[in-house]
């Protein structure tokens, strides 16, 4: 029989020191174990293929038929009604007509795998052999708010824990000094739903995602006032911890009080580690250039991608990087002018994403880091307002890379118009089940009891996409 230690050793590169924490914890050798810290590392259900995930969230709904799902039929039917479209598919009822719209972009095959990608993602195209492109995603809502909720928490409604919360609940944190679930926002701001997109739902608050600021201090008030030395601060915090522990013991049902204790200890360590982690000047010039930090179009998203890599290196389990914020054209929500919108957002993200894959690979981290790309839904094959595209959840594309996922493959297909996922359909719970699986968690066993019921990220469905795993 395999011991946990064997399993962890077999799990591959990058594990070493970080896994030790998990081992010690599970053997009861860490002091915090007694305190029952919710973020304590816990052993996975089975040998994980990835120890971290980076979700590149293209908020607003990137257009599958203009990026990863080439549809020559749309050019043939351009300007004409397509037989599959129903008026009720439109989100913007009056503006979206059943008039097919050809992609304004050319597609070409790339890499050894020959996967077809549009010209908007030239640098990413060179990394195509690392990608597993899923062309048969489907989701349940055609509006941003509920669709974001579904992609993040499995439910189209607010109030469920998000994926990053589930992962940290299942595995604990590998980092002593950074949050286990970090959110990096676009410079345009947060997506709709705001912080509900990284909510812990009914789980203890310690599993909430922590957003890092996009400019200035990465986290507000990361550094103490000048008069407060580290030693002075530590002595304050030692007394505070005593007091707060006692107070929490008087109110055993309040998980918030325990979370507060945890939050101070983490905050203390974050002061050093977050500053070190977010100090991109420590990266050599060529790395900064690789991520496009020297170009104002790519600098912002590039910085966040580079940050994501640095966080993963430091044991953060789940990093979500948003492209697009706020609403409308500031996100991938190309209602009015698809080309203008996607030209911009692809230009912002192409180089940085390619850099992230290349860099992770070069460092041997791609094997243990699952990278996920996608939005809350795709876009309509028919035109909105002549040259835009409407929301479309019935069929769209996402891709995964690294973390034990096969590269250079595609999975599933939409119909000839990119309207409906028809072949090897992948639901959001299927995707979630697969992500959890790669991280060593069985989505059916990962349950959280709330109000006398066991909840799952995948609720009552979800199938791991075994055929995509290495």
């Amino acid at each position, binding site marked *: 029989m395999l011991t946990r230690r064997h399993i962890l050793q077999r799990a591959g590169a990058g594990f070493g020191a970080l896994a030790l924490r998990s081992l010690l914890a599970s053997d009861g050798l860490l002091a915090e174990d007694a305190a029952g810290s919710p973020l304590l590392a816990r052993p996975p259900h089975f040998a994980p293929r990835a120890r971290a995930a980076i979700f590149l969230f293209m908020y607003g709904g990137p257009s599958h038929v203009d990026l990863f799902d080439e549809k020559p039929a749309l050019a043939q039917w351009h300007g004409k009604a397509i037989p599959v479209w129903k008026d009720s598919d439109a989100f913007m009822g009056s503006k979206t007509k059943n008039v097919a719209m050809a992609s304004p972009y050319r597609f070409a095959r790339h890499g050894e795998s020959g996967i077809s990608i549009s010209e908007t993602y030239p640098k990413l195209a060179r990394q195509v052999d690392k990608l597993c492109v899923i062309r048969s995603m489907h989701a349940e809502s055609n509006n941003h708010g509920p669709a974001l909720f579904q992609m993040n928490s499995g439910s189209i409604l607010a109030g469920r824990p998000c994926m990053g919360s589930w992962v940290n609940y299942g595995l604990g944190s590998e980092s002593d000094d950074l949050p286990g679930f970090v959110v990096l926002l676009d410079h345009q701001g947060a997506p709709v739903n705001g912080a509900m997109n990284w909510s812990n739902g009914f789980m203890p608050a310690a599993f909430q995602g922590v957003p890092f600021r996009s400019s200035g201090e990465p986290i507000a008030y990361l550094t103490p006032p000048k008069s407060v030395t580290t030693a002075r601060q530590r002595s304050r915090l030692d007394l505070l911890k005593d007091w707060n522990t006692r107070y929490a013991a008087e109110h055993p049902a309040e998980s918030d009080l325990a979370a507060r204790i945890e939050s*101070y200890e*983490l*905050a203390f360590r974050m002061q050093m580690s977050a500053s070190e982690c977010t100090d991109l000047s420590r990266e050599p010039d060529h790395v900064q250039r690789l991520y496009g930090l020297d170009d104002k179009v790519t600098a912002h998203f590039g910085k966040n991608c580079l940050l994501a890599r640095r966080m993963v290196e430091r044991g953060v389990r789940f990093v979500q990087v948003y492209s697009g914020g706020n609403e409308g054209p500031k996100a991938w929500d190309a209602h009015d002018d698809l080309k203008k919108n996607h030209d911009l957002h692809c230009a912002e993200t192409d180089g940085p994403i390619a850099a992230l894959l290349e860099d992770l690979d070069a460092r041997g981290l791609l094997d243990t880091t699952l990278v996920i790309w996608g939005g809350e839904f795709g876009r309509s094959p028919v035109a909105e307002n002549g040259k835009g595209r409407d929301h479309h959840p019935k069929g769209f594309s996402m891709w995964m890379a690294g973390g034990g996922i096969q590269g250079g493959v595609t999975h599933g297909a939409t119909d000839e118009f990119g309207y409906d996922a028809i072949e090897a359909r992948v639901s959001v719970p299927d995707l979630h089940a697969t992500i959890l699986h790669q991280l060593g968690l069985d989505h059916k066993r990962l349950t959280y009891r709330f109000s006398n019921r066991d909840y799952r990220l995948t609720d009552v469905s979800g199938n791991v996409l075994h055929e995509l795993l290495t």
Partner: protein
Amino acid sequence: MNDAAGSQIISFDKIAVRSATERTATVPRHVRHQLVDARGKLFRLTVVLLACLWMPFANATEDTFEKTVAPILKRHCVSCHDARKEEGELRLDTLGRDFSNGQLAGRWRDVADRIRLGEMPPEDQPKLSAVEAKAVTDWIAKQLESGLSSRAHWAFQPVKKEFVPPLVPGDDDWVRNDVDRFVLAKLREAGLTPSAEADPVTLIRRVTFDLIGLPPTPDEVAAFVCDDSPLAWERVIDRLLSSPHYGERWGRHWLDLAQYADSSGFHNDLDRPHAWKYRDYVIRSFNTDKPYARFVAEQLAGDEVDGADDESFIATGFCRNGPSNDDNMGKTPEAIAQYRADQLDNVITTTSTVFLGLTIGCARCHNHKMDPLTSRDYYSLLAIFNGTQKHGLVPGTEDTNGKKVEVDPAVQIQALVERSSKVPPTFVMRRGIAANKGEEVDPAVPAVLVTEPLKFPQPDADDKSSLRRRTLADWITSPENPLAWRVLANRVWQHHFGKGIVDTPSNFGVSGSAPTHPELLDWLARQLIANGGRLKPLHKVLLMSATYRQSSQHRDAAAKIDPSNQLLWRMNLRRLEAEVLRDSILATSGKLNLKGGGPGIKPRIRAELLTASQRNKWPIVETENEQHWRRSVYIYSKRQLLMPMMELFDAPTTTDSCSVRLVSIVPTQALLLMNDEFVEDQAGFLAARAISEADDNLQCIVARMFELTVSRVPQPDRLREAIEFVKSRQTQSNRAAALTDLAHVLFNSSEFLYVK
């Protein structure tokens, strides 16, 4: 964003308001499951009974069910979804078919969705044929539609005259007033007992925070603890209710609902230099305990009320608080019409959620999927506001050269009024698009809420307004309105007990939560009506109750039965809201400047965080002084740059009406309380204050610091521990710095941040 169980549902409600998805209005699955689970077997039994007894179905559809649908379900579904297996906690053999019951309707909707999506039956089972699937889903769709037209939902029923549950021998020991009888009756049903009264220090802290949002002074605590009179508690309540700080505290709750801010949001985030007058109006209204009918009428129709004046014009700022982008939404007639529709949508959505607890915003693009509200209802409501225009300064107005336009100094308010009785015709806008004209509608209130259409006056041509909004306001606050008084009573309850009787306080519709104490809620609503819509008598009834005075102490046995304390077997522990936290730090350090009213203040924000501040720049403040140390309700609310302390401790984002604040716990809050210069400075002031107020020995000084911050001197061993801490810190620096360290720990302690 960022929610305990109650607020999860709220956020759902918020989304429902915002979105136009076909799936928005589904009852949250976990809520449905909660219902099933919380009541366990009892609920299932009810379902069985319902299924057996429930017969008032139109015969044709019942026939369809029996002949067509039931056999299909039996063939394909029931083998897993029966009493034996109950997969997914669903029993299809006995699922009730009362579609006016939101929970049941939601479960059926789910069944239809699963079948439609091909998720059920599962892969390893034979699929339904297309004909079978259609038969089932069509039947469900039809029932859902007919269920919608129902007025059966509890909140649409008239407020009932509830009889107070009788006393049982022995109840006298605990029961203090009628509120307790309602609460005790529910506790008894569940096999629970209430908690004993909290100690006096806990009580006076609790009630002082609740009513004025500040901690009690050590003198106030001592006076109450020493007052043996049976009237002591009542005297404290009366004192606090007549404090001018009551309005600052309770006005803030209203400002959350009214999405109050001092800037416009959107890209330019322009200043609203007169918005604060609305904030002050709200505070004044609470302090004078303005009758609710007047309060509502002034905010919706300040130009149409009797004795309309500056004050009532300012009140209509309620309708102008939402985000706006006046000079930047396009110049075409279509764009202007659409923008106006969007602005009015904010007014209607806010009005209906705040006053009626209805998420009618959903009906902007399509009929409401859960509540019996139609697009027609929505646009009829819009017709009521369709004659309005903005009055007073449009904030930051600039001419095309970017120069500030000279503002008429006479009109320094922000109002929404009518200038003529002629209201342009109102049309349904299909899918919410202004250019997409549907049928014309007359002003009306939602049909489901009235037995006959509300009559709107026919004004003369030369009247100054149509009186439509006044008519709406009067209808909202008429004693017959089934929603308004329940919604208001629930909000008052919510802020005293930490959670509403309906824990979706702005959604009393079918998708909202069911009340935990429906009879009590109606009883409270009647109290409000009987008191002429004044809140202070209601506060007093709640605060005088034994229910309110319970200890918050955990009890294992009770927690096993009711873990989330739905039935109030104890008081809820509550964290101070962002404003109260900051105000408490200032109050205890002795630096709080109690000056009320006037333009918003801009306290120090770290300079590096000011990059988000665009046009109306937040000043760089090196050192704060007493002009910054005013109560937090007076902080300038800039939509693009909320005060970090407010934002991190879950103050509302002001984008939407906020009826429940989240209580998030994140390390960034700890960072702020550890590192913000504000906390550091105030800790120093607290230390200095204690030194100046106490005898010159360390024990007295430390004890004083505890009294000031947490209202009690700790047990001797803990006091000794604190003194030892100061002594050991003193060896590193000096006494003042060492005491500052202790003060800082106090400001960060859970005991300081939580109200027991």
